[in-house]
């Protein structure tokens, strides 16, 4: 038997070593803490976590907010990616800069900026009142809607860029061919364009959902302590309740959800790729 190790593999070694030390090892220790009790290995912490109504409420909110954030980001990102793919010259540069530059801005700054916009005397309420849509300021700050809007803004580039990459590689003659065969615009979109761009949609959704489900700073600043998410529960368990088994358990639950999303999206993307 001959084991071949390509020299190119060496390029991955520093990255893998780094990940092994700062990610895999702590992760294993974390998982061990979630099942280790003075009496031996046990899943009791998991049982206690899932039996608590408050925890279930937090889990449901986290999943709901992540799903809505992903949906909103997708609705904005999909047409944006097509506009970017069609853009040429300086317009393309403008689009790319508009997508990438905000990523250099700290998430705290963005979350704080949204909290200013959502205030009773903030821009959104003033604009809605000015347009006569509302007469009294609406409560926006510290609401789940505000959180979804703010999070979608922060994660938008991670949805746009994968879709843009796919749209850019799409053969634009295919929808035209469908049109020449008499397909209506709706038919062309749902049966030609959308299936061809689905791998980008799946990748972007996986990115966005994974980040939205584990966000900490954004909910801390936009909705505060009364509407906790799983990440906030983890911080609370480790830092304030000083309950490491509980914190480790919640971390493991969050990790399991993230792995499920990544693996499912990977399988889905592969199937879609194979179909095409």
């Amino acid at each position, binding site marked *: 038997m001959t084991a071949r190790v390509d020299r190119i593999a060496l390029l991955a070694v*520093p990255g893998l070593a780094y990940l092994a030390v700062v990610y895999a090892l702590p992760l294993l220790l974390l998982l061990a803490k979630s099942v280790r009790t003075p009496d031996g290995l046990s899943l009791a912490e998991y049982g206690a976590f899932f039996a608590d109504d408050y925890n279930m409420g937090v889990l449901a909110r986290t999943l709901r907010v992540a799903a809505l954030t992903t949906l909103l980001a997708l609705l904005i990102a999909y047409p944006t990616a097509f506009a970017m793919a069609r853009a040429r010259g300086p317009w393309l540069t403008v689009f790319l800069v508009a997508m990438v530059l905000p990523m250099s801005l700290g998430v705290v700054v963005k979350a704080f900026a949204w909290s200013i916009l959502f205030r009773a005397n903030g821009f959104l309420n003033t604009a809605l009142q000015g347009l006569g849509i509302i007469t009294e300021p609406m409560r926006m700050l510290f609401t789940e809607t505000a959180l979804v809007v703010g999070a979608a803004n922060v994660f938008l580039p991670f949805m746009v860029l994968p879709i843009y990459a796919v749209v850019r590689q799409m053969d634009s003659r295919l929808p035209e061919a469908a049109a020449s065969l008499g397909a209506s615009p709706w038919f062309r979109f749902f049966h030609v364009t959308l299936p061809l761009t689905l791998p980008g949609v799946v990748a972007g959704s996986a990115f966005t959902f994974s980040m939205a489900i584990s966000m900490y700073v954004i909910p801390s600043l936009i909705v505060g302590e009364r509407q906790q998410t799983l990440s906030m529960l983890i911080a609370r368990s480790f830092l304030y309740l000083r309950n490491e088994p509980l914190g480790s358990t919640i971390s493991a639950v969050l990790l399991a959800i993230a792995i499920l999303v990544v693996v499912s999206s990977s399988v889905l993307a592969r199937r879609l790729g194979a179909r095409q």
Partner: protein
Amino acid sequence: MTLISRNGLTRRSLLKTSALAAAGTLATPALLRAQSSELVAGCAGSHTAWMEALVVPHMKKTLGADILFEGTKSSVNLEKMASNRDNPYLSVVQMDDPVMIQAVEEDLLAPITAEAVPNMTDLRPDAVHMDGMWCNYVQPWAGIAYNTDLTEGVPSWQALWSPEAQGRIIIPSLQNTEGMWTLFMAAMLGSGKPFAEAQYEIDAAFAKLEELKPNLLSVYSTMSQAFNLLEQGEISMLSGSFSSYALPRKAEGVPVDLAAPQEGIFAMPSGICLVKGGPNAELATGYVNEMLGAELQAAIADFATSVPANTTVTAGAVIPDGVQIYSPDWAFVSQNRREWIDRFDKLMAI
């Protein structure tokens, strides 16, 4: 069996390279460790202004020390100390009394002695705790901060519960030490007992806190954001706010003030301690000595509108006249705080 690959790269050499890369990654923190003139201090986020303006230059001048400080919550400082127990990187920590008690219980502190820290002898007797495990340095007082454009004053803590305040109040989480003030005042108002007895009436406190829910815009764990909302008029009152943060903002011309309601106010339990086994022990005791000395105490007390613990200092904040100032049973708080945080979060959840 080690087999030679097509490119002359063996499995063993790959493993060696991986091991070297991992060792390099592990060794990096050692390269970044503090130099001998550097001292890492933990403190509260709200200390940042006076740490930068007063403490850092003072320590450079008097001790020749470069102070690196990490501003965060007392509970987070405790977790940092506990997690790095075998190899501490913090030398000194400034945190609140209830968390100090936990730190003592977990054997994370080294005692402060008058031999090493002579300025300790000038402190009020009640500022030295558990035979010198920690000392209070300056103490702000806490009441209710309010927006002066929206409210003329806050004569009573009962104002937090008034129907006019619906959706216009923010209170601190019990994760923050200042969160205890609303809890204890709810205990007094809910039980009708004086503070000395009411502080143990926690069921009455939570029942009264539940009545506060319609008036809450939010519960904060980051004070700066909540205070900003007060300054902008998004809320009218911020419960549990303290003099070292609110009064300097008032002095800057921001439309806020700090009320000392008739039922009483609270003394913030700001303490300083030495980390057991922390680096640069000599420099650390020098730092604590300076923090307890008259010159720096006067400067911090003035800057942060706080009451100095050093009896030779006459500067600093004046406790408002005619109101009782309370200091709770911190041992009782320390014993029950985790349970209270859990109960509070569940009670206040939307």
